[in-house]
């Protein structure tokens, strides 16, 4: 009996490994569907609208608030060393290298990823995917791949927008509220943010997170049980798994490539 938890551990690891294998296979199927005709451009555009355009208010508002908070926080520290003109560098680097892509990915996972998982899971429950199969249409091609590609492609755009709003928020608070000189704020930011290292790094992070969220959300919806509990499990599972995966990948991207 004392061995039960250890046996359980083995079983659970196997389940996790099996899911990892399946998710990789699923990802390859999505890529294969995207590469061959027909290209589902209309469905893709409507999914981009759902995942991207409808996420705009959340992303813009959060960006501005995060930028402002960084300014407030950075100023109290820097002013002790008389280095408040370095505030621009601090806000710029923090937002572009780290907070922009990561927070955008978490926001988009919560807003669009969960919606996509719930939609696909509902289609499983109401036999819509089986209906497609019976019409000789591959649901991965017709439903899943446009959604996954939509999440992948909106992520860098939304991250860029988040960053723009965060920088504006940071500038507004620093210059308008805290009395930092606007010129030195901008020049310290310009001097410290490097295009190839920081901006391209940010872009590749956002792409990675977009792929992760797109893959996890669609996979979780696709394999859900055909019940209402299955739909809710798919939604929760997507948010939890994708959020943790984003943070873990972020750590490794930082650690290994200094992105």
């Amino acid at each position, binding site marked *: 009996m004392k061995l039960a938890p250890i046996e359980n551990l083995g079983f659970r690891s196997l389940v996790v490994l099996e899911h990892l294998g399946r998710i990789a296979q699923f990802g390859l199927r999505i890529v294969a569907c995207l590469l061959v005709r027909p290209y589902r451009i209309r469905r893709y555009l409507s999914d981009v609208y759902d995942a991207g355009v409808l996420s705009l208010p959340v992303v813009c508002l959060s960006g501005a608030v995060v930028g402002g908070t960084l300014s407030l926080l950075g100023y109290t520290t820097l002013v002790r060393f008389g280095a408040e003109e370095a505030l621009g560098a601090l806000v710029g680097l923090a937002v572009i290298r780290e907070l922009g892509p990561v927070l955008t990915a978490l926001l988009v996972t919560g807003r669009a990823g969960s919606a996509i998982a719930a939609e696909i899971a509902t289609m499983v429950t109401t036999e819509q995917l089986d209906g497609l199969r019976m*019409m000789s249409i591959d649901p991965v091609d017709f439903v899943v791949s446009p959604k996954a590609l939509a999440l992948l492609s909106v992520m860098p755009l939304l991250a860029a927008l988040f960053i723009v709003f965060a920088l504006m928020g940071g500038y507004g608070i620093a210059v308008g509220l805290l009395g930092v000189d606007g010129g030195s704020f901008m020049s310290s930011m310009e001097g410290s943010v490097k295009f190839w290292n920081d901006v391209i790094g940010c872009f590749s992070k956002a792409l990675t997170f977009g792929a992760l969220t797109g893959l996890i959300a669609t996979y979780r919806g696709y394999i859900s049980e055909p019940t209402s509990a299955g739909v809710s499990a798919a939604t929760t599972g997507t948010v939890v798994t994708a959020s943790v995966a984003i943070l873990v990948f972020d750590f490794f991207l930082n650690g290994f490539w200094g992105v």
Partner: protein
Amino acid sequence: MREPEVQEFRVAFDGVSLRRGERAIFDGLSCGFPRGQVSVVLGGSGAGKSTLIRMIGGLQRPDSGSVRVADQDITGFSERELFKVRDRIGMLFQGGALLDSMTVFENVALPLCEHTHLAEWDIQSEVNRRLAAVGLAETGHLYPRELSGGMSRRAALARAIVMDPEILLVDEPFSGLDPINVRRIEALLIDLNRHLGLTLIVTSHHMASSLRMADRLVFMVDGIAIAGPPADLLNSADERIVEFLNAESDRFAERHELDVTPLMDRRTSPDRRVKS
């Protein structure tokens, strides 16, 4: 009516078994569905009627045994090979399974857009023709959520037959419908069979309409199937069939000595409820 020869079967099960957990859903099930006839599959809830239909469509694979559809053993087919078989099959799901992100028109047009090179104009006239045939001529612009149960089932029927299948699988077409809609769908299905020669496989527990439609009845009991012409089966002495048929009639309560008197003592009668 004579029993059809094996080669006339459009769909045939041979020794099919399927277990779900501990429970055997099919236990060596063998039966056939003849070409151009209406076969009605009867059985209680959980007898595996829907599973049988899904298996013919290749949506569910058997643990053992073989399923032949249109002279091909589909048991070991890959998804891609199944697509070829499914081109000859139409399926009407119990809930309709219309895509709720698309209008009724787009739903019915979908197979045509995906699998034919018809011009837009031809697709339009074809879809309108099908919708008119099921009595939904003016509803093409509506979304499935705006339709009533009977209407969405008819729309789904229009979609199932738009590619002119040889075999039409119909899962519980009458459940949850009022008598007028039952008659309407029944008439549509019979028309399809009589005029176009479709092989129809219908699951149902609606006895009256089943008997009106069926050329052949298939009873699902204890994981196997008992098939035959309606006249033979209705007079059959087989206990399990007699049981099922009697359960349909109002003699059921007598036969099983069901006693409803305990229900007469209503603990939730209005005067005992919590006042709000």
